[in-house]
């Protein structure tokens, strides 16, 4: 069952080609990890999927529907950012509750209940009344995941969700993501965490110079890398 089909995605920034004709398919419930060197177009790719970047060319179909209504599309596709981007003036609970309340028309009580349940799910029950500044990086990122989940998306996008975190906080965020994947959520994760990719991904894609040059299940990806550029990449990030 295909959830997402992208064909021929292209995007240039000035003279720099970020995406050079990318095709991508994602099945319902599939967990896809995208890795690659910096500047290879990974972030641009997932930002094109919820149209935070407008692709110059190509088509994206999600759930059988071409994305025409931007807001409707984004309500069904959750996104987690490298820098968390929580709203600093709101508590953890309000951060999660605001979108369902304002966009889905939930009452304050309903939205708060949804927020509390999600905080519980990301192991942050009891932190509901804290503002982001009172939470650690790992806790903020888990609130950000809960905030995206509050819209009940059919697909979750993660843009280097652990790159801004201290090493000891990476695990708690990855654990939440693994659990989310096990619960059947369709996910596309841009990350350099190869341990996570091995543990949680159904397929791993490798990007280089705006193209997906390799795509394989974890075992094959690591044990028999299907592309010479990938061999070097894995050497560099696993070798040190």
């Amino acid at each position, binding site marked *: 069952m295909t959830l997402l089909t992208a064909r021929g995605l292209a995007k240039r920034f000035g003279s720099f080609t970020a995406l050079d004709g990318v095709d991508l398919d994602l099945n319902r419930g599939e967990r896809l990890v995208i890795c690659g060197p910096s500047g290879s177009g990974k972030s641009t790719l997932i930002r094109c999927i919820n149209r*935070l970047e407008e692709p110059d060319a190509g088509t994206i179909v999600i759930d059988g529907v071409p994305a025409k209504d931007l807001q409707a599309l984004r309500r069904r596709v959750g996104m987690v*950012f490298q820098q968390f981007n*929580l*709203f600093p*003036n709101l508590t953890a609970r309000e951060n999660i509750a605001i979108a369902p309340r*304002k966009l889905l028309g939930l009452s304050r009580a309903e939205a708060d209940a949804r927020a509390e349940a999600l905080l519980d799910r990301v192991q942050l029950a009891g932190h509901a009344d804290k503002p982001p500044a009172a939470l650690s990086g790992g806790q903020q990122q888990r609130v950000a995941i809960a905030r995206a989940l509050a819209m009940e998306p059919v697909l979750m996008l993660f843009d280097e969700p652990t790159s801004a975190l201290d090493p000891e906080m990476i695990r708690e965020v990855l654990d939440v993501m693994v659990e989310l994947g096990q619960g059947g959520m369709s996910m596309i994760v841009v990350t350099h965490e190869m341990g996570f990719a091995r543990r949680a991904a159904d397929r791993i894609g490798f990007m280089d110079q705006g193209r997906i040059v390799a795509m394989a299940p974890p075992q094959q990806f690591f044990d028999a890398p299907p592309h010479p550029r990938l061999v070097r990449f894995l050497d560099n990030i696993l070798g040190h």
Partner: protein
Amino acid sequence: MIFDWVAFFEYFPRLIRAAGVTLQVSLLSLGLACLLAPLLALARLLGPKPLRSMAQGMIEVVRGLPPLVIIAFAYFALPKVGVVLSGFWCGVLALGLVGAVYAAEIIRSAIESLGCGQLEAALALGFARWRAVLEILLPQALRRILPPLTNEFANLIKASSLLSVISVHEISQVGQSLIFETFVVIEILVQMAILYLIIIGSVTILSRRLERGLGA
């Protein structure tokens, strides 16, 4: 130097009445500025291209002219196109416009200073752009808006002294004519200073209260 207390108290009532006019002009133009500024700021941030250019053009023109020139335009040019207003209302209009333009830039820059991460987070959740700005960014920007806005409003109150040139009977105009009538200089200047300080001081205190209310 001998401070003439008798003269001081003799002329004080007239200046207090003038302070009432200063206060009215100031409050009305502040009100006008508060009404226009968010509209101008939002037009610049969210408007379609022609609206954005219009707002920007208006801001550049008003910012590029001394308030005195704008006041003179309102007083002498408006009647030529059939709009006849008293000096008082010309003053309110001119100062309100000046205040609105500066306040609009304060609002716009405060919203832009939040960075694109906040806007993207709101967009990614499914907020339309205008709702993201109004419901997510503006509440955050308020605490950055208030301190510079207080400055701007203090400037506006002081600029009301310029209305003396179109014979609005506010503090500066009345003070000046009293000085020429009576040759009592220092006592009247001191009265003018006290009255301005009271008016601007109250605005500052009010704004501090508001800031604290916002938790800034």
